[in-house]
């Protein structure tokens, strides 16, 4: 393919494939633990960090790191609220942080990079971005291999996990730390609104198709990498936004997975309305 002749696209491709595989693999655990909201919240609430980095001309990765850390601290604080409930408190925190980011970015006399921060600037990947993203992805992958058994025990059976030598609380905390790393690695490519697509869609496809946890993770990583490749090629061929193409490619592959393997029989029990389903 001739698009690979350009150094710009080579870097973008490498970046998005590495990031897609990592987010896909990590996403399987996040979905099994029902942490989609955490992923969405962390990604959304990091916006002020990104904007400040863009304003002062600091590397985006630095802003992303600061943004994720601040977001994580605020969300952890809000999630302890028992009066309005964690979901609502986290929602308020995320809305506020996101609004603050937009406010800073849209204040006049500022380079208007908000679009890139929200939806990604995959083609703007430079070699440093690539190296850092690769390093972070490697770290996440290593941690997932090392933590496979504790994660299995903590997800499958949190009550019995301590008697198996696993502390579920610590395992979840470690997983959220990995999530933060993955978001920092992926935000350059997908932007803080679309990172979630690479975390949720390939993992959903992997979970639908895989019969064992290991299989699900391998499939999700594959689907994530493939989403990156297909999305980037489509974006170059059709001349559309790269990050959004990658996100849509990931979702299209998930839809394909559901067609290959339709869901099992309807769950039994009383019919629940959408509101009941949503409010758990």
């Amino acid at each position, binding site marked *: 393919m001739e698009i690979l002749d350009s150094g710009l696209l080579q870097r973008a491709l490498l970046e998005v494939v590495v990031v897609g595989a990592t987010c896909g693999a990590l996403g399987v655990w996040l979905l099994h633990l029902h942490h989609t909201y955490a992923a969405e919240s962390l990604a959304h609430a990091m916006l002020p960090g990104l904007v400040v980095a863009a304003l002062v001309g600091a590397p985006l990765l630095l802003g992303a790191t600061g943004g994720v850390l601040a977001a994580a601290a605020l969300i952890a604080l809000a999630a302890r609220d028992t009066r309005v409930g964690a979901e609502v408190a986290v929602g308020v925190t995320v809305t506020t942080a996101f609004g603050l980011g937009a406010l800073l970015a849209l204040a006049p006399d500022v380079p208007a990079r908000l679009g890139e921060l929200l939806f990604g600037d995959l083609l703007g990947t430079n070699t440093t971005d690539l190296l850092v993203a690769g390093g972070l992805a490697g770290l996440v992958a290593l941690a997932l291999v090392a933590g496979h058994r504790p994660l299995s025990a903590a997800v499958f059976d949190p009550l019995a996990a301590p008697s198996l030598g696993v502390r579920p609380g610590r395992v979840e905390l470690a997983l959220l730390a990995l999530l933060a790393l993955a978001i920092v690695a992926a935000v350059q490519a997908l932007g803080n609104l679309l990172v979630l697509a690479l*975390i949720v869609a390939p993992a959903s496809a992997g979970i639908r198709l895989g019969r064992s946890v290991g299989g699900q993770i391998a499939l999700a990583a594959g689907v994530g990498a493939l989403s990156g490749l297909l999305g980037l090629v489509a974006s170059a061929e059709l001349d559309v936004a790269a990050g959004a193409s990658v996100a849509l490619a990931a979702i299209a592959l998930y839809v394909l997975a559901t067609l290959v393997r339709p869901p099992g029989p309807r769950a039994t029990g009383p019919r629940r309305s959408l509101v009941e389903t949503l*409010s758990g």
Partner: protein
Amino acid sequence: MRWLTDPLAVPFMQRALLATLLLAVAAGLLGVWIVLRRLAFFAHAVGTATFPGLVVAGPWGLAPPVAALGAGLGFAGLLSRMTRRGTTSADAATGLLLTAALALGAILASDVYRSGAGVDRLLFGTLLGLSDGDLALAAAAAAAAVLATAAMARTWLATGFDPAGARALGVSAARGDWLLLALLAMTVVAVLPAVGALLVSTLLVVPAATARLLTSSLATLLGAAVAIAALEGVGGLLLAYHLDLPPGPAIAVIGGAGFALAALASRTRAVR
């Protein structure tokens, strides 16, 4: 004082203030039910899902509220379909649909219709150009919220407390829930012009959550949520006017500060 009164002389600000007060009634009342039924994330997701609808509204010659409503209802319908069998969890399905809507909207806006700077307005709201239709929709949403709260408070309270028990009490949980969702969709669409697709929570969730920190009786909760939404909405408008910003982010920051203050205040009160 001039800081407060000067904007009132500007016609477009008068319209924006009127719209905000109407929206405060609609969003404040409905927000209480959203918070009590733990639908905060869903409300945010529906708002976000309207983004592609808003993008195509202009080029397709549709009224923006109609296009937004279509996108929002499409989102809710797909979500209901995906989660009905119980094999896909609600949070994963919401995440998938949310990012799909955003990605689709981004491509439509940047590459198909080249909406340019208008995108910021769709995402974060505007003070300018609130049409008569927008005002009428805000008034209708406010009236619907008042009527529905008066008629449905008992049903919503019973189903929110214990869905299975409510069925046994003979309360039609399903009908009440559908009404709640329909009203939520209408209110989301009504607040879109003012605060944008990404920040509907600023009016729909934050004021009610703040009120929840301060009171737990339903009547005071409803009143306080409306009052807080009105205060924060007007404050955000003034801030946005003076800083030349879209109102959504300004209201969001003020709302966050209000929530933090209420959290601190209620904590010290609880300690005493």
